[in-house]
């Protein structure tokens, strides 16, 4: 029953959201694409063909920041998701008392703001921070480790911080996934004498494969856009050793001599990576579905 009223209601209800998304998402993306073929400052922009793309390929800093971002992803994501999965499996065991308390504690880091916890961790890992104090008192090190000032340790600190903040977040997805597994499977495994390792790797992991895949993509996606933490923990330093690609885009646009055209080009590289990931996810889940 299509009448005038429903047609009018349909389009007026959708229009505001549609206009917002067009104006603040698609128009900027399209103009970033146009910008990537331009050079100049402020309103003085000229087309310069593919020069920005050629610069991108030869830009050492771009590759360094992309590399940093990928290192974070490669180290952080497997460790974090593994801990999240193990914790979820343990929390799913009805024999464990105080499950709710543990779950709340482990989830709590996820409600902190990115800026706040980064500053907190910067203090915890400071030269005279609590970690160094502990290490000194336990005689593990003789001199404090310059965590935030050392190219290697700064990366470690960022990865540790990310794991602290997001493990509980991904745990929630695994807990939800575990609820959908028939408990009789575990009972059967128990009767057959399977131990924890066997049930974990032979039953839980295969059954949760779709969720593990999904969370991997989600984590990759958010790591590719990492900005707040790095800015507030290390500021990208020392040198460029912890700078992420998002921070590089920000610096190119607002800190260094502004070159909008080129930074738009770098941002499109991130965009391309995110789109590729999303397509990969859609393809794989489609295969699973059929």
């Amino acid at each position, binding site marked *: 029953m299509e009448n005038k009223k429903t047609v009018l*209601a*349909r389009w007026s*209800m*959708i229009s*505001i*959201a*549609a206009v*917002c*998304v067009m104006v*603040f*998402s698609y*128009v*900027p*993306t399209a*103009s*970033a694409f146009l*910008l990537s073929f331009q050079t100049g400052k402020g309103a003085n922009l000229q087309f310069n063909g593919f020069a920005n793309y050629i610069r991108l390929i030869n830009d050492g800093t771009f590759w360094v920041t992309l590399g940093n971002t990928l290192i974070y992803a490669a180290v952080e994501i497997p460790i974090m998701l593994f801990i999240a999965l193990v914790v979820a499996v*343990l*929390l799913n065991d009805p*024999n*464990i*008392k105080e499950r709710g308390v543990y779950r*709340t*504690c482990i989830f*709590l*880091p996820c*409600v*902190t*703001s*990115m*800026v*706040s916890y980064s*500053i*907190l961790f910067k*203090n915890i890992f400071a030269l*005279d921070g*609590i970690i160094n*104090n*502990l290490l000194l008192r336990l005689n593990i090190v003789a001199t404090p480790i310059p965590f935030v000032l050392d190219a290697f340790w700064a990366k470690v600190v960022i990865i540790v911080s990310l794991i*602290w903040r997001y*493990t509980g977040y991904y745990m*929630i*997805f695994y807990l939800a996934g575990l609820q959908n597994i028939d408990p009789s499977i575990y009972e059967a495994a128990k009767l057959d004498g399977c131990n*924890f390792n066997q049930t974990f790797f032979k039953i839980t992991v295969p059954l949760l494969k779709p969720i593990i895949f*999904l969370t991997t993509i989600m984590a990759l996606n958010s790591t590719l*856009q990492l*900005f*707040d933490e790095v*800015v*507030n923990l290390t500021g990208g330093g020392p040198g460029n050793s912890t700078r992420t690609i*998002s921070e590089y885009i*920000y610096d190119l646009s*607002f800190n260094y001599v502004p070159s*909008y055209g080129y*930074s*738009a080009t770098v*941002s499109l590289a*991130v*965009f391309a990576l*995110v789109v590729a990931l999303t397509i990969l996810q859609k393809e794989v889940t489609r295969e699973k579905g059929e």
Partner: protein
Amino acid sequence: MNKAVSYSIKRLFLIIISFLSVFPFLWMVISATNDSADIMMGKLTFGRALLKNIRNAIESANLGRSFINSTLLSVVITILSLFICSLAGYAFVIYKNKATEVLCMIIVASMMVPFAAKIIPLYRMFANMGLLNNYLCIILPAIGAPFLVFFFRQNSESFPKETIEAARVDGCNEWIIFTSIYFPMMRSTYAAAAIFSFMAAWNNYMWPLIALQSESKYTLPLAVSNLANGFTPDYGMVMVGIIISTAPTILIFFILQKNFVEGILGSVK
């Protein structure tokens, strides 16, 4: 392995992970009661500087003003985005046809666009409109959130269409159906979406950092980050700032824990 031993190991593991998760919070609260010098010495007991730190944070760092800014912005963004996105999500299900399906796909696809890819054009757009450093440039890009449209659409699928038909027979106008039937029935969906939207607005850092220039307009993440990255930061004061910016979200989490989790899981339904 002995059953009791394996049980103890599991519990020990959970206790350690829980402790590691909570410890930074504990340390944050303890540090907020200490002087900057004590914090740097690694003091792990409560001190007496809490009131002084709070006074500093509010008087010299103006965190009270940033708190009000953040609260106002987040509440306005949450209300507007919930209204706009739930309307669209509802309409995409109730008035579904080929055209709306395509439009919905286009809107949801924009979730893929990383924010970094939009900052320069957005910056230039708002600069041209003369709206930089105006809260409109924070509010406008946030109210049409594709994720929320998607979230409401997913949750509207289960909304009973017979109810709508019945209301129409009773002579209800399409908008009345939305406001007085759909809205009250979907309260828990709205709660989950509100948490998601509020958190995103409250914690937003990158865009306000670019768009807001005068300190009197700063939101909490900007103000706290500024304090902490100053030349000789007063750590006690910084800790108070961190607590002020974390406490509201923790409070919401404890009050609405169930909706909170729903909101997170909503992204994968």
